[in-house]
């Protein structure tokens, strides 16, 4: 038996076996659900639950090595579900186009009917951007990016032309570089840790915010495509 360090509380040690069994039982029941379900999109969603049960089983160990198991596990799950949904989409498109050439699976144009998009979207966008910059880091990036998304949506909902910013993906690259420089500074010049911390936070902010902005612009391009 592995010696557990004495400073680990007894409750956490006792939680190990119940969590393992919970994970396995969740996995088993989702397998039963998958066996009973007939529609393939539902099977795909149910399969994701098995992935969450995997995270439960791995997390039950609770050491840093187990944590390093969780990250690749999550990434593998995410990559597989993306790949399989792509396969599902391309197969359905092929099926449809083999019978009817003109029909496509491309999404229909969206109809926005929300008051928030017509009353004060610019002010809200400014607030979101300012709050995101104030927060910095990953959360701040998500909030600022949400602001950009809201702006693009509101312009589209009011029928105004959307200003196309070509360099927005380049900005994301600059954010990535800032993050990398900060990482190197952490190791080379540890006395400037505050500088590198803020460099990394600002880099992440730029990166995540522009990612969300890109989603908004790409969405428009995809849906507007003929």
């Amino acid at each position, binding site marked *: 038996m*592995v010696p557990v360090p004495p400073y680990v509380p007894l409750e956490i040690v006792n939680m190990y076996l119940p969590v393992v069994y919970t994970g396995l039982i969740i996995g088993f029941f989702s397998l039963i659900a998958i066996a009973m379900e007939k529609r393939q999109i539902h099977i795909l969603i149910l*399969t994701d639950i098995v992935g969450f049960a995997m995270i439960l089983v*791995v997390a039950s160990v609770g050491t840093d090595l187990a944590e390093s198991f969780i990250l690749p596990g999550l990434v*593998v799950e995410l*990559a*597989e579900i993306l790949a399989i949904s792509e396969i599902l989409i391309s197969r359905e498109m092929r099926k449809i186009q083999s019978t009817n050439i003109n029909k496509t699976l491309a999404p229909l144009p969206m109809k926005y009917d929300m008051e928030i998009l017509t009353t004060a979207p610019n002010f809200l966008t400014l607030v979101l951007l300012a709050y995101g910059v104030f927060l910095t880091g990953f959360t701040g990036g998500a909030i600022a990016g949400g602001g950009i998304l809201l702006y693009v949506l509101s312009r589209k909902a009011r029928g105004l032309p959307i200003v196309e910013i070509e360099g927005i993906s380049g900005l994301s690259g600059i954010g990535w570089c800032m993050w990398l420089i900060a990482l190197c500074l952490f190791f080379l010049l540890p006395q400037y840790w505050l500088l590198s911390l803020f460099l990394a936070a600002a880099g992440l902010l730029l990166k995540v915010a522009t990612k969300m902005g890109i989603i908004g612009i790409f969405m428009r391009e995809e849906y507007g495509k003929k």
Partner: protein
Amino acid sequence: MNIGSLGGDLLGLIPLGDIVLYINPFHLFMFVTMLIFTFLIAIGRTETQVETQFGTLDDKTKTVDLKEFRARRFLSVVCGIATAGAMITGDLYNLTLFMSLIGILNIGIISSVKQIDVLDSVFQYGLIAMMCSLPLFGGAALVLGACGTVSLLAIQSIKPTAMMIFGAILMFIGACGESGIAPFFASKAEMFRTPGSPFLLIVHLSSLFIIIRVIEVLLIICT
């Protein structure tokens, strides 16, 4: 079980920090074979298919365009390198990661065949690969929880407990699902002799090698 009694005499250790690779004649042979096959695949070309048409005397050639060919070759080469890495690694953690990587790459290689039947079968395979990440990662985590380490050099001297054997069985189920069953689904693509099918060979080869290696690792854990 002792590492030496399974794969022949220990030729040497390669310590890379906390990751220690150990080299047997058995591992070395499989590693080199895998690299040779990967090289052959890297320089290989897709086959061009000639289909006879009904009703006329014409033939239709099916070729793979350069972009798709490159994507397929890239996936196959990465799959070969991942398999070679799984052969030489002395770490349960790395073995698990290589196996899940091979699972994803197998999905990619098979799904690049754009036929409805093949896409149907690769969808089923992808579902099974996703479900089997539970026993694969869960089994590895249980072994880690029972041993406190994932290094095979350290595990070989630990007496097996019930939890370790349970984790090993789970890992075996996971390995079967991630790459062991892949040939059954790849054969669907091969049956139709799809354009560019030689790249599917790496799916068969990697699953064969992975299963051999996993059985060796399980013997180390269980005995």
